[in-house]
């Protein structure tokens, strides 16, 4: 069931991304000042948005894990955090390339950039916690708490971006933002295409973790059985034994 969902989502992602390539490089006009480099924005924006959605999904799954004490929610949360980290990393990389051409520096302490990096650090800490050896149920509880608390910081991330003066471009502001209509349509199409990519990656990782957990339980069962059964008699290798 999960396998077929992944296949459909990956197929839709591949097709929509192919259409987006045409929209980005053939249909959307080239920005007058930045030129071709501006095209990176069509990747940067969806990565940032779906990265954030990924962390929200992880938070919801962690809440369910704490309420229902079901391991599958913990595994889903872990998958969402990992996918979110990938998207957040790519957001920072693409943002940095954009910044180099737009502002002349690879990194500037703009509030939105800074807070994106803080989010990255928060969830990197969460992944570090997950890598520590401890009983699974304890690990699930602790990681769930950190994931939830980490996501509670996200409103402050957005507040800080709005409250403080920022050199970050406003894309979809209340007064229409700074985008041409064709550019806006392309950006929205890219956001939709990246949804399928995000969903595919999330489900693939979730399936991997489910299979890994199942494999672990089978191995433990086998080991337990082997301990219960009497040891089989082995042939003597040497006559003297």
């Amino acid at each position: 069931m999960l396998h077929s969902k992944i296949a459909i989502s990956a197929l839709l992602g591949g097709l929509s991304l192919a259409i987006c390539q045409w929209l980005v490089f053939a249909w959307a006009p080239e920005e007058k000042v930045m030129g071709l480099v501006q095209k990176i924005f069509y990747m940067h924006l969806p990565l940032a948005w779906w990265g954030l959605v990924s962390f929200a999904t992880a938070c919801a799954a962690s809440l369910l894990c704490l309420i229902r004490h079901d391991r599958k929610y913990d595994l889903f949360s872990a998958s969402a955090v990992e996918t979110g980290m990938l998207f957040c990393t790519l957001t920072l990389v693409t943002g940095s390339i954009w910044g180099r051409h737009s502002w002349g520096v690879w990194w500037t302490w703009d509030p939105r950039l800074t807070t994106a990096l803080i989010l990255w650090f928060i969830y990197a800490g969460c992944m570090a916690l997950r890598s520590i050896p401890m009983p699974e149920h304890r690990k699930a509880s602790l990681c769930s708490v950190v994931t939830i608390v980490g996501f509670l910081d996200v409103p402050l991330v957005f507040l800080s971006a709005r409250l403080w003066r920022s050199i970050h471009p406003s894309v979809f502001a209340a007064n229409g933002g700074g985008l041409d209509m064709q550019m806006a349509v392309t950006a929205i199409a890219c956001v939709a295409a990246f949804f399928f990519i995000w969903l595919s990656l999330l489900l693939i990782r979730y399936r991997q973790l489910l299979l890994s957990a199942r494999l672990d339980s089978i191995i433990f069962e086998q080991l337990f059985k082997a301990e219960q059964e009497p040891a089989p008699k082995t042939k003597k290798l040497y006559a003297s034994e």
Partner: protein
Amino acid sequence: MLTAAIAICKKDLLMVFTHGAGLAQALLLGLLLVFLFSLSLNAGDRLSPQAAAAMFWLASAFCQVLVFNMLYAAEEAEKARLGLLMLPAPVQSVWLGKAAAGMVILAAAQCVFIPAVFVFLGQKMGEFWTLSLAGILIGDLGMAASGSLLGALSVGQSGRESLLSIVLFPLLTPLLLSVVKLASFGLEADPMLENALRWIGLAVAFDSIFLGAGLVLFPFVYNGED
């Protein structure tokens, strides 16, 4: 719940201030940070108020990690966690008691860090020092709430300090930004106060979030599981 929290707070404070080993370690680390940073200055140089405020809060943040590790390690060392959990009170009273104790210890440590910032980093008290004081109160409350929640997280783990620092410091950033700015207002001769209320609002929002999160999530972190 409050009675149990006050009892835990009293017990922790008594333990820390009578033995004092953990407190001395936290104080020394904070002082060392401020002093070592002062070595980057040339003779007669004065650090900018914002950088000095950042150093003060960085020292406080490291002190917070050591303080909350020390507070939660006390029960672990004596295998008394289960005893604490069997208190006829909600488990949140442990969180509240440890947070209150941690806040008092942190404030006591900051009483030493403040003169160190003036002496080693060449700072002068400005006209709006009350804003800095408000920042310290709000900041300490947020640090206590978050430290008490996440301090319990590293209970029984090897490398507790580094684990807590990795998880806690990124979460503290919004609070640290706010309180650093508020502290710098008190050190500058003529600060730009137009955003002062926004900074206070942000720090209060952080405190509210972590006070709420502590109350709700603490039982999942601090329980009988090893």
